């Protein structure tokens, strides 16, 4: 009996000492991604109209899951200061549109992928990284979600796929454009890109 108590005590101490592998951020991601998978596997949504409905529902989930303002700010970095308030707002909208156009389509074509959630890693006081692996028939792709807690709600501000941060990748592209052009030029480029679809 004593041994059991000692073991339990040791176990609980260890539990405190080891950083938690699962946590509220991981649960949030898991819940939202499960929601997406449920939409994808919904047998009621078939054909062209079904696809549209699926995309609409996934868009809704993504808006809850991602903090597009934080994402935009981090992407523009120092250049965010060059943007006026209305420009910032438009940028957030266009950037969101661009990401959704690019990735929602891709996601809807997925069928039998399996997602393993590995752990949650503390990045800073307020930010954590939820690490997952998307396993397909031919590959295993590490997908990490970086998240911030604002007002009790965990939301994604960056996605790192196979070691490539989405925010950093767009930052280098936008910085290249903004080095020689005013914010309006970038907005115009985005407008054309998003409208085209």
């Amino acid at each position: 009996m004593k041994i059991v108590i000692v073991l339990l005590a040791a176990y609980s101490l260890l539990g405190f000492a080891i950083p938690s592998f699962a946590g509220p951020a991981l649960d949030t991601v898991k819940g939202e991604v499960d929601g997406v998978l449920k939409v994808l596997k919904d047998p009621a949504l078939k054909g062209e109209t079904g696809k549209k409905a699926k995309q609409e529902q996934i868009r809704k989930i993504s808006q809850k899951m991602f903090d597009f303002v934080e994402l935009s700010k981090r992407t523009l970095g120092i250049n965010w200061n060059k943007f006026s308030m209305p420009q910032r707002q438009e940028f957030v909208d266009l950037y969101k549109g661009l990401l959704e156009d690019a990735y929602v389509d891709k996601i809807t074509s997925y069928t039998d992928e399996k997602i393993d959630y590995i752990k949650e890693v503390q990045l800073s006081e307020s930010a954590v990284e939820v690490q997952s692996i998307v396993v397909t028939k031919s590959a295993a792709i590490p997908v990490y979600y970086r998240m911030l807690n604002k007002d009790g709600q965990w939301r994604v501000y960056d996605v790192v796929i196979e070691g490539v941060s989405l925010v950093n990748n767009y930052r280098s592209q936008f910085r290249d454009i903004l080095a020689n052009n005013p914010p309006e030029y970038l907005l115009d480029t985005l407008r054309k890109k998003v409208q085209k679809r």
Partner: protein
Amino acid sequence: MMLKVSGETWKGVPPMRAILAMPIIIALIIFPVFLYAESTVPQDEGQNDSQLPLTIVQAQPESSTEETVKDSDADVLVDLEDLEAGEEMSEEETVGIADPLQPWNRMWYHFNDKAYFWMFKPMAQGYRVVVPEGFRVCFRNFYTNATAPVRIFNNLFQLKIEYFFKELVRFLINTTIGFVGFRDCAKDCYGIQPHQEDFGQTLGHYGVGHGIYLVWPFLGPSSVRDTIGTGADSFLSFTGILSPVDLEVPVWVGLKTHELVNDTSLRIGDYEIFKEAAIDPYISIRDGYAQRRKKAVQE
């Protein structure tokens, strides 16, 4: 597969293979030129630095911002307070790679882009119809196993002893039980995960930087460091250009083409999505390359 391993390989590399090895040889010969070019890079960074005073300018728009806070969309504006914190983090994380030869590299990027859409993609699409996915994964396993010595030796060079043994065991298992590598039995049956290392990573591990960014026809993004790495690894790969295994030229070209088409067939659509998502695909690839390689060296 008739791979003839002979002791005399080094005596005569077939002339065709010497030609195929040209990109690497050229890189080595004009390496000093690249070094010179690299010395111009700090100027570029200097230009970026000149934009830094914006941080100071920032104080003004911020204050005017707060006035407009109330009458605009609250959702966007709530977050403006932690603007500064966000910036510090983001500037820190930036991974760059010098690109003084950008026009030249862009040309080869466009060449590779066309090679994909006009050649490799149609080939891979046809191939995909004929060969079931399971077989294509087997072929990819085979080609991966043929480069096992690259991973074994580079793990050793970096004194990653555990990974060295793991890769060695993987090679032994997959070459025997895995039917010359067609099945990744080490992973599937015994759960031994691969640990990718190449000579570019070994150089990076010992502090060698990229030098400058380079795009090679067919091979895609690379750098001076990683080009030298690829050349060195070629000696260790059974299917490499300078491989110790003496393959007939047509056999070698056939194998390489098959490897590329087979590989492409397993990820048709990825490049299209990626390109569609990018504002400037060239910059996006370059940045992705820099980020991936940095992580690969760190691991």
